[in-house]
């Protein structure tokens, strides 16, 4: 059923008894042209683009739990394309353009809200670094503005301008950045992909790879039986090393915990997404009214999906330093996701050394905002066997050759990216 205000009104007349499942509850077939491991945003988007852009509809998405149960369901919902290095810049802008048409593509309101993303700066050096990044964006056709203090004050009069330890001096603004409703992105892709014939199979955990005599991957073993595949794509950020290990691969990735927090719902308080430049704190306000905020990863390897107090305190300290008006707003919930932290802070989308197995991993902090772009270029790779031009630098062998994409300049130290 097509979703619209009219279908909603019609449904209301019948007490909403006629709505269908948002996506079909599929039973696994024996074989698919492409099997995607991971029913998160990236996996589902990949399936949708395979079906809609590349005409490959005999596709299954295997999810070990419920769709969106990984990082797609546990993030701070920010979308932006304000990256500074070749490789990232074009890719994230491709993703941004796909965000801008997502609702119409999918007939599902994922609440893409381009309220702006601002990165605040507090020193001349930081300003210059943002100028460099903003210029990269502009050279790549991406909107970027460097705001001075007066402009920031006008836009965000509630920041601490009086007695801040590290006074705000200005900010790098991307007006097209913003947020989207994370769960709805998952459901929207599931809804649309399912409509094109993609099988979405929940509670189906991959337990091994089926290989032929040449070592080529020809399918997967799952908790719901063997499933044959022409190609297998893994999009399991957070579990990449564990899944790759089943194929005998070691990755340049560590799993870390990133915490996020939401406050009680309050009436609209802040306009867009803000990132503090002198501490670890970024924040936006959801449509429901909660302040959604976060900071850095805890800094140690973890698969526990929960973090500890020092980072929670550090994040709130940043928040209070930036805008002491939130002192009496209450933190409602904290959670943690498993981050695929790569060795240079940038993602990996590539064929693997194992024939038939393709990888989409290492998303660090960039996973959610990459969702549509990641699906698009991964579908391209799976369909055409060559990287999409905007993902050509996300090679797995770049660490071996030295062609790292290191935005933060921290080197092979994942907890510093």
């Amino acid at each position, binding site marked *: 059923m097509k979703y619209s205000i009219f279908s909603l009104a019609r449904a209301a007349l019948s007490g909403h*008894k006629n709505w269908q499942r948002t996506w079909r509850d599929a039973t696994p077939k024996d074989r698919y042209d492409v099997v995607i491991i991971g029913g998160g945003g990236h996996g589902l988007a990949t399936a949708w683009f395979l079906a809609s852009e590349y005409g490959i509809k005999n596709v299954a998405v295997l999810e070990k739990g419920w769709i969106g149960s990984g990082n797609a369901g546990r993030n701070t919902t920010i979308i932006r394309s304000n990256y500074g290095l070749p490789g990232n810049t074009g890719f994230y802008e491709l993703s941004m353009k796909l965000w801008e048409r997502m609702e119409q593509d999918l007939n599902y309101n994922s609440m893409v*809200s381009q309220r702006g993303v601002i990165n605040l700066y*507090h020193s001349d050096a930081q300003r210059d670094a943002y100028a460099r990044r903003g210029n990269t964006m502009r050279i790549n056709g991406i909107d970027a503005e460097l705001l001075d203090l007066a402009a920031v004050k006008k836009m965000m009069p509630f920041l601490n301008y009086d007695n801040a330890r590290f006074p705000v001096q200005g900010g790098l603004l991307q007006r097209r950045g913003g947020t989207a409703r994370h769960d709805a992105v998952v459901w929207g892709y599931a809804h649309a992909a399912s409509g094109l014939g993609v099988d979405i199979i929940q509670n189906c955990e991959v337990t091994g790879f089926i290989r032929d005599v040449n070592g080529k991957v020809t399918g997967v073993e799952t908790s719901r039986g063997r499933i044959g595949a022409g190609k297998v794509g893994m999009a399991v950020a957070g579990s990449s090393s564990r899944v790759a290990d089943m194929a005998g691969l070691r990755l340049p990735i560590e799993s870390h915990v990133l915490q996020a927090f939401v406050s009680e719902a*309050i*009436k609209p308080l802040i306009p867009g997404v803000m990132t503090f430049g*002198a501490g670890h704190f970024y924040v936006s306000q959801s449509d429901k009214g909660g302040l959604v905020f976060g900071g850095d990863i805890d800094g140690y390897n973890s698969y526990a999906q929960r973090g500890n107090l020092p980072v929670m305190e550090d994040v709130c*300290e940043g928040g*209070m330093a930036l805008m002491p008006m939130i002192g009496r707003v209450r933190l409602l919930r904290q959670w943690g996701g498993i981050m695929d932290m790569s060795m240079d802070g940038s993602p990996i989308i590539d064929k693997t050394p194992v024939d038939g197995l393709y990888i989409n991993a290492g998303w660090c902090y960039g996973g959610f905002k990459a969702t549509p772009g990641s699906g698009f270029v991964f579908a391209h790779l799976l369909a055409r066997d060559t990287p999409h031009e905007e993902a050509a630098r996300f090679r797995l062998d770049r660490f071996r050759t030295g062609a*790292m994409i290191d935005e933060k300049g921290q080197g092979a130290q994942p907890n510093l990216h």
Partner: protein
Amino acid sequence: MAGAQTNRLDKGGLIDRSAPLNFRFDGKSFSGFQGDTLASALVANGVKLVGRSFKYHRPRGILTAGSEEPNALVELRTGARREPNTKATTAELYEGLEAASQNRWPSLAFDVMSVNQLFSPIFVAGFYYKTFMWPAKFWEAIYEPAIRRAAGLGRAAGVADPDHYDKAWAHCDVLIAGSGPAGLSAALAAGRSGARVIVCEEDFTLGGRLLSDGGTVDGLPASEWLSRTLAELAAMPDVRIMTRTTLFGVYDGGTYGALERVNDHLPSPPEHQVRQRLWRIVAKRCVVAAGAIERPIVFAGNDTPGVMMASAMRSYISRYAATPAKRMALFTNNEDGWRTVETALAAGLQIAAVIDARADISPAHRSLASKGGFPVLHGAVSGIDGGKDGVRKIAVSLTGGARAEVETDGLAVSGGWNPTVGLTSYHRGRPKWRDDIAAFVPDGAPPGMVAAGAANGAFGLGACLREGFDAGAVAARDAGRSGTAGSVPVADDQAFSLTPLWHIAGKGKAFVDQQHDVTASDIELAQREGFESVEHLKRYTTLGMATDQGKTSNVAGLAIMAAVTGRSIPETGTTIYRPPYVPVAIGAFAGHHRDETFHATRLTPSHHWAAEQGAIFVDTGLWKRAQWYPRAGEKDWLESVTREVKAVRSGVGFCDVSTLGKIDVHGPDAGAFLDRVYINTFSNLAVGKARYGLMLREDGIVYDDGTTSRLAEDHYFLTTTTAKAGLVMQHLEFCRQVLFPELDVQLTSVSDQWAQFSIAGPKTRDLLKEIVDPTEDLSNEGFPFMGAREVALRGGIKARLFRISFSGEMAFEISVPARYGEAMARNLMLAGKQFGVTPYGTEALGVMRIEKGHVAGPELSGTTTAADLGLGKMMSTKKDYIGRVMAGREALVAPDRQVVVGIKPTDRARRLRSGAHIIPKGQTPGPGNDQGYVTSVCFSPTSDQWIGLALVERGRERIGEIVHAHDPIRGEDYDVELCNPVFYDPDGGRQRG
């Protein structure tokens, strides 16, 4: 004049009638007593309508008497202290309290947004995912702002929080959450065993349900047992009882988070005191005695003001002597609900009827009914006739199909009890279902934690006391305490008989999550659309995501989902429990770390002297550094900085460079050690000499640089950049302890020991001669370039002198023990007066290093190689060192890498800016020809124009080429010439002279 407390009983309760308090709600004056909560005072004043719901703006009253409250949320206090979404049920009354209802306009009684109720057939769960998509641009412009305005409950203050917060640590053997019968019993057992005990109680009064439910313990009335117990605990020096303190989370290694509301019960904190304090409690064992939460039954109209949890009704009557209803009805499915009837009758109130869903009730209750003159109806409540003014009538579906009506002014509801499984589940333990009590009980608790009493599903008073006592005794023993716990407090156990009942089908909205307006039919819709997983259910309907985190709604919600999917409740499962247990003010997590004290501040030894000179300071990491020293009449920073540079280049100046990291490297293998961490060799450095060194990361990228001197055969003095001081120390300790443990080397940070000054300019030696003891030879022969040694100063103190230069001038750096730092600055001024000595700041320092082509932070960006910086020749080929192998990778030695070059504008009057990109001349900027960027710029007084350094593709091969500096973000475009990065004295004659 405050209104009369019409619903206050004449006697009883734990309120202090000698301490009346005036307060205002929605502008209207009321009075209450010390010991009231805002909710109990509103009840006492007959106020029923307290708030409006999130989505439909339905009128709502008070449902509970605790922190599980979904409805009675207010904006407490005014102005900068306004706190949105404050639970009236936990807010203590104080003189002058001001509260306002929220999420309504223009008033609580007449809320325009309640028009939403008309559209409620459309506003079902997830409706927004299906619409607002066309036209595309309307979402941000129209739909979303409207949704945002309508959502969001209360209003934050919008201005800086004027109160202070702090944080503290506590340590104990046994931490106990809750001071009800189980908690106090646990405290007794643990305390008597000799354990260090902390009891956290979120209420302002100790006793938990004893305060409302009474009973007999050890043959004494509960209140008497309570005061004896508290006295016994108070006499134990290592038992600490913290009221107004909520244990909200459990973290790894037995670390717990707790919030103490130190002064929230006062209009504002007394001077020097905080509003709230965040506790990090480290406990060997934890007993969760946090009780249970009574759960509602879902039926049409169950959100009408006047419908209240039965246990809350009891609390208001017995603890607060306030009567939510004069002639109430009870709807229960279990034995416990009847206690409310007993309490009401004892208080002289009337009972309209009891609706009991169970087939049988006890003879005792039957006789109670006949004595009280009220009917007992077997069946269920199916509807409410009432509205914002409260309940008028209730409709009852009798077992067997008949219907009945009961006139009443309030309905107490008891659907059974849910143990509080939050704390025990925060490490992803999943609670397990117990059929006998039809509830989830804790399972998979974090290490060291047990639940006891009602929190563990033991609902009888005797059982709570026993379980608590045993848990306390075991916890103390596990923590290594061997004292005698003594005898367990004894009380009878009440019968617990319950027939599970979650939802009564019927016409009209039946609410599961009252705050988020999630109805039973929303859950059915979610199931229909495939959102069957409890996590999908939660996310699709927002069930349990309100400020109460679903304390009264989650279990009912999943029970309804279980029913519609035909699964059992345990098969349906629970969502993941997330801390904090109750919402905690963000300010409390920040504590002292806000405003100027957000981070610590480091001051250089000459800081106060520089401040006296009128220096402008800049933040460099945690440091405050003098950026420049303005003089009267100078119109801007550039004029000051230019003067400082000229003064140095023509005479002499000095700058405090104490912020550099300084490390003593000692030991017989110190030289060998440095050879492994630097790309160049230090083992062959002569004693009395300094050398510039460059470190790589193991991935071959430049990490840090600095000058290192050999002061003795087994003693080097290493310096780092200011930014990397701590990290380099950590890295060197890693090398020493982990990578090269066979080397005999010792490291000590001496950054704070030495005040270090750079003295630069052609008259440096003249100035130094005034300060250094005349016996010291400062001549070029006696103290050549890159010399380093200890010298005596006039006046008897010793200093370290290094002939190194960052400016390209004849220069020294001099170190004195830090407490002499300020005197050193004064003495330099005094001695240098005759030479026109000029203090200079970090800006002039930066100008001179750019003029000299020295790389610094902007070039050491974490992505550049030694060769990129023009320092590739320093990479030794005769030894192994950190980063050597990876530095040889193909992409790191590619010929088209961006390397450091100088730039100068073709138009000499043109100002340069860092961050501009380099594009070949005559080309349209695009991703394909973005060849680098400007890293550092300055106005060079020496060149009398702006100059800069840039990282440019193949830059060194292109010296002399005119390229385009493209700076669209600042709207600038201009030509620059690529040039040798050393603008000043390229032969180095000045610094060696």
